[in-house]
């Protein structure tokens, strides 16, 4: 089966302090995503998550390896891949409509301004901002700004949506609502999405595949979690699902201890053939057998 996104052995190195000395952020990263899938990278700061996303976006280039999207190697940026930035990155001198129209005009330069505005309005409505088209970003709350960022990214109807911790600057309530909306939009449009997050629950709720990275420098992809939760999950009763705690505990355990020790305890780790696990399913990693009650205690301690 051909993969829609295929990251093939990429590494990113920066020149070190002395000549000939290099710092490797991450190494030999192989991962792939099917069309319509939602992928999430989790890892500590410094493991190169943002760099991976920037490489996917074409804003950065890998030192080794290549990224193939839809059968073509990624060279530079493309209107096929939209980015939702952590800090929303709206142009403050433009209105909501102006910001979205800016993206629409970039994609379809020949459209009339009426058609551009109409198209932009459709997406402003999609993220629930109808009526705020003529406000400037400074007049919007953090959540509304990020909605504009989402509308801008979606308005160019990208083949792929890249999100760099899009909700980390928002308060918990706003974050929850926006997660719901992003999930709804992604499911409705069958959008292939790739997201970076620090938030374990966000990853479990949104992602089909969760990629766990070890600590940098010299980070590698340690495990891929195939999310065992059903596709029709809702944020409200997510935690009641029998597979929820096994997955959550597995990720938290990984982040707390194993992300640090993974490479020493697994010297035979093959970065090209990363184990795909699905905690909670029979015959998987041992930690799910302990049951949710015990793990809850462990979780609280961590």
């Amino acid at each position, binding site marked *: 089966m051909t993969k829609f996104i295929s990251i093939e052995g990429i590494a990113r190195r920066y020149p070190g302090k002395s000549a000939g000395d290099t710092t490797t952020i991450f190494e030999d990263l192989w991962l792939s995503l099917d069309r319509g899938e939602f992928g999430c990278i989790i890892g500590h700061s410094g493991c190169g998550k943002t760099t991976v996303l920037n490489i996917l976006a074409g804003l950065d280039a890998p030192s080794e390896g290549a990224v193939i999207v839809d059968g073509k190697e990624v060279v530079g940026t493309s209107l096929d891949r939209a980015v939702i930035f952590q800090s929303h990155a709206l142009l403050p001198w433009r209105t909501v409509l102006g910001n979205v129209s*800016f993206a629409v005009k970039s*994609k379809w330069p020949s459209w009339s301004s009426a058609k551009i505005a109409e198209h932009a309005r459709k997406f402003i409505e999609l993220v629930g901002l109808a009526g705020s088209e003529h406000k400037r970003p400074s007049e919007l709350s953090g959540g509304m700004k990020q909605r504009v960022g989402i509308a801008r990214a979606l308005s*160019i109807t990208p083949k792929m949506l890249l999100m760099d911790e899009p909700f980390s600057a928002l308060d918990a309530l706003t974050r929850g609502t926006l997660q719901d909306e992003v999930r709804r939009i992604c499911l409705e449009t069958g959008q292939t999405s790739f997201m970076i997050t620090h938030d374990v629950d966000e990853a479990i709720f949104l992602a089909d595949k969760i990629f766990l990275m070890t600590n940098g420098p010299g980070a590698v992809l340690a495990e891929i979690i195939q999310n065992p939760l059903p596709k029709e999950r809702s944020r409200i009763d997510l935690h009641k699902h029998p597979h929820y705690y096994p997955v959550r505990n597995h990720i938290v355990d990984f982040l707390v201890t194993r992300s640090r020790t993974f490479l020493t305890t697994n010297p035979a780790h093959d970065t090209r053939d990363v184990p795909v696990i699905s905690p909670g399913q029979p015959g998987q990693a041992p930690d799910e057998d302990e049951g949710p009650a015990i793990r809850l205690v462990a979780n609280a301690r961590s």
Partner: protein
Amino acid sequence: MTASLNVRAVLLSAVILIVFLACWHFATRGTGVAATMDPEYAKLMGGQVTQGASAMPGPLEVGKQLWKHLANPFYDNGPNDKGLGIQLAYSIGRVLLGYSLAVIVAIPLGFIIGMSPLISRAVDPFIQVLKPISPLAWMPLALYTIKDSATSAIFVIFICAIWPMLINTAFGVASVRKEWVNVARTLEVGPIRRAFTVILPAAAPTILTGMRISIGIAWLVIVAAEMLVGGTGIGYFVWNEWNNLSITNVIIAILMIGVIGMIFDQILGRATRLVTFPE
């Protein structure tokens, strides 16, 4: 509360002005008869000796003279007797011409310097050396090469106005937020459109601040340049009236220079506010 603050500020300004005018008036008024002398001789001597008046004109005298100038600002009675309006118009014309040339050169050049770290580093030493040169130091060189005093004055304005605009434009362009540039990059916005729709609006407040500093310097320099070059302009007027020993006219010229400078500054201040965006 802000309204009352404004009212109080205006009142205080008025009080300061009145106190200043009063001090000026009492410091320069005559002290009555200072010396007794033959009336024929006294007529020749003037008020300083006969009434003990100060050589410095008082505010009433300056006010009267100012009124005369304002009532008829554009008369022209030959090279050494032109209305204040004509002299100011010459100076403003020179400043605007030199300043416009500086804008045309400095902003595109600053854009290039700001966009390219290589060019920025390469030209930095030249800018650092050229920037602190007093604009008037260029005057002999300008007179020698251009061989025309009027054009030389404009050149001096150009050379003094260019640096703040160049440096601010380069700085503003170089410090446009990376995320905005990245937005443009991910949207595959071409370089020309990126320059006009992202970088220019983002750097506009810094560029306008540079332009505001420049117009201030240009207006400072034109007075000195016209004193050197002569012929017309408010700087020449000041020097000419000094040679006429008309301190009243010198004071009036100083006042007008201040007022015009303030108007220039206010116009650019408004323009800066127009392009400033809240974040």
